[in-house]
């Protein structure tokens, strides 16, 4: 998989920085999560367009993927399925405004690490990312 890592990502990996991809078609979620995670010491790319995010994950690997479930154009479940197929090791956190047990179960079956219902607290999602880091032995941020 190392062949797919871009120079920037490689540099981040060298610095031991955890990489995160955020996908949510509500721009406000990206606008708030990107600077929030950057400030906490992460390397972040955020997308509002599922097709672009899909394109991006075929180019490189992310340590953590945070995605909405319900979006125009692409089902979040399909997206995380794709991510897991490419990188079984990537930790996925699902965020959604329509939290039902059924979707939760379904996403857990697909290997989702955590499930956060909107609206959520910034601390909650940071906590989720940190637990992924701990489990996968990434742990760079405070």
């Amino acid at each position, binding site marked *: 998989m190392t062949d797919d890592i871009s120079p920037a990502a490689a540099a981040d990996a060298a*610095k031991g*920085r955890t990489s995160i991809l955020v996908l*949510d078609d*509500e721009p*406000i*979620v990206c*606008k*708030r*999560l990107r*600077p*929030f995670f*950057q*400030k*906490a*010491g*992460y*390397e*972040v790319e955020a997308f509002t367009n599922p097709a672009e995010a899909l394109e991006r994950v075929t180019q490189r690997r992310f340590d953590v993927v945070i995605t909405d479930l319900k979006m125009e154009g692409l089902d979040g479940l399909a997206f995380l399925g794709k991510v897991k197929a490419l990188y079984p090791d990537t930790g996925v956190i699902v965020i959604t*405004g329509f939290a039902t047990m059924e979707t939760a179960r379904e996403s857990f079956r697909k290997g989702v690490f955590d499930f956060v219902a*909107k*609206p*959520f*607290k*910034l*601390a909650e*999602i*940071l906590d989720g990312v940190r637990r992924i880091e701990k489990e996968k032995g990434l742990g*760079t*941020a*405070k």
Partner: protein
Amino acid sequence: MELPSIKDLFAGWRKKPPVPFSVLFKKFKSILERNNSILELIGDMGDKLGGDYVFDRQYIFDSCERLGDQVFKLVSDLSLLCQRKNVSLFTAFERVQHQIREELAGRRALSRSDHILPLAELTHDLADEGGNKMASLGDIRNILGCTVPEGFVVTAGAYFEAMERAGLRKLAAQTTKHLCDTRGQGLEEASLRLRQSILSMPLPRSLSKAVEQAARKLAGEGGALLAVRSSAWGEDGESSFAGMYESVLGVAPADILDAYRRVLASLFCEDALRYRMHHDTTCEEPAMAVGVMRMVDARTSGGLYTYAPLQEHDQPMVVSAAWGLGKPIVDGTAETDTYFLRREPPHETISSEVSPKTTRLGLDPSGGTRTESVPAELRDNACLDRGQLALLAETAMNLERFFKRPLDVEWAFTPDGTLTVLQARPLSIRPRSCSLGEDVAEAAKDAPVIFSGKGVTAMGGVASGRVHIVDNDPDLADFPYGGILVARHSSPRYARIMPKCRGIIADVGSATGHMATIARELRVPTLVGAGNATRVLRQGQEITLDADHKVVYDGAVEALCRYELSKEDVFEESWEYRTLKRVLRHISPLTLLDPKSDQFRPESCKTFHDIARYVHQRAVDKLISLAETHQDLTEGAPRRLATKLPLGMTIIDVDGGLAPGEGDEVGEDAVRCRPLSAILDGMNAAGMWETRPVPVDLGSFMSSVTRTFSADQSHPTRMGRNLAVVSREYLNLHLRLGYHFTVVDAYLGGSINDNVIFFRFMGGVTDFTRRSRRATLVADILEQFDFVVETAGDMVTGRVKKHPTRAMLDKMFMLGGLIGYTRQLDAMLDSDEAGQRHVQEFLQRISALREARE
């Protein structure tokens, strides 16, 4: 129990209600529960503004929908309970619901219909009415307390009315749409046609009269000249439109209407049309509010960038200044002095460059402005001294922290030495911020953390400065400019030093408390409930508070502060934030305060909160009157509680709240209801039911209280006497003592998750200031006991739930004490200090009593 149908329930109600009281009480109880869940939902929506949450568009739609549904059901419940159609209440509901839907649909409902708003009344809450530029100026004056020119704004509403009457609103809308559709075909002609029509349009008579009158009043006896400035929607906000719209300077009051039309017409100048076409994909209808201000007779004026655009290192701010009025400086046609200052207090001068200044712009007494030559002795002098530079720098940093953006500030010093802020607009430093993402991650990673992960964000943001630990009033007096306030408890007392402080950390406190609300208003990064910050942080220690991440770093982490300012989007300016704030205006304010007032009617309900309040009051009244007229309804008849204290309380026992027995009176020992028993213990405890002699000047006040009690006692069937509905675990208490009105609704003793106390306190006979002090006092005390507290006017509500039963009973004991203690306290609250003294006094007494109980 078999439930009768609704029809049976109401048949022959007045004669002999056919159902047991417990059934009616269930309906009543469901109203209370719904009322509480409505208030909680309102509170939740308010919390989302705090910065701790990420919420999206869908959340706003969903919660408005849910809330509307609950309020509708609440109104329906009341109709059932009271067997009334309540048409006017449904109408009130529809009205509020409609306003909310309009807001959500992007049709801004102007909350004020005035043509003219004085600057003194303007803040960002009225940005739709006053336009962005004037609303910002309003914030600078009214929230931050800076001097700005005197003036008023002719509102966006006035613009719409004038355009509508002249038949131009439709033309403008068609033109905008056409340009959007055709990507700007015929833009030049369209612009010219619209502008000419506006320049010659007649203004509605009431509008022109109001503007002329306000202009004359502003100009005063001396006929001072006026500046007429654009303040369009979106200007100086997310989109800049910088310099596109017209400002007319040096206007004599007699010429005000022409200047007004000129500024309106500039809304459709070619640049603006083009800009909107490219940047505003929705082609939202534009609007122009117009600011009218008295021209400032400036001795020196100029501009200030809080970040110097070209300096690579040290990140200083830069000031340019010249003698006279500022226009040539802004236009770049004047020779100016340039100063680079440090951003950190005390803002030392890094370098200065003084140029020879041969001319200056001055006011022409006959109207307009004129260029004059600068007297020889001033030409080569620096036009700002050290003190002025320091004042300028401090002011600019306060503005920057408030607006959360690097700023371009226009300012002037008048001959008497007053600093006047003319304008502040966002300054984009984005080109340089590309690499900041990397920097910030590194900087934050290496900075030593003092503590992290503790507390609740009451207001997000980053602040660095020196710790100033505060624990009594004298500490407030010498609070240093630029310090970070660290305190044991949150308190609204800190409001007065907030403009000076960069950040706040409190060991104890809630994100919905009074202080948090003020911190949000002033946008001061605030962390509450941080545990032991007062012990971990040292006086004078330099720290950086990152309230978003709940991290406190040792030292100044400059990269973090810089990053905070260069964020692409300020949360407070996002559509989501603004829209939520806007819909909340129709939801959360409580304007229906006094149930005894004539205004306590469905027609007066302006918000969902008002409706909920109204329904609650009516439901309580109904329950009391039912209990009085139909004593046979209850399982046992209502019984009077014999107490040492003059409570005049009637108890309706629904299920096991009283020991079985006969007679219409019971003693306190017969109370089996655990929450009631605890609250009575608190009232009876030594030193709680205030018995000290009352000062002589309060004699008349006391007699009014006594009268109320004796009236209650001599007429036990009168409305308004005190009522407790109880079961073994449940208490619903409505208590009017003197003029204080208290509601307690508690369920304690089931599973820990069901444990809940709701407490509400309001009323009082003294002036509003004293009542507010008492509200603050009650709120402070409740917060100390883990209540989530909301204050509106002199009403305080507190909620706490899911604590172990023992701890909850302890809180009930405290509430009993509090009700007794505050019973007639407001008359004595003659100062804020007295309020704080009583908080301490109460806490000491109650803690001694609680220890003794254990």
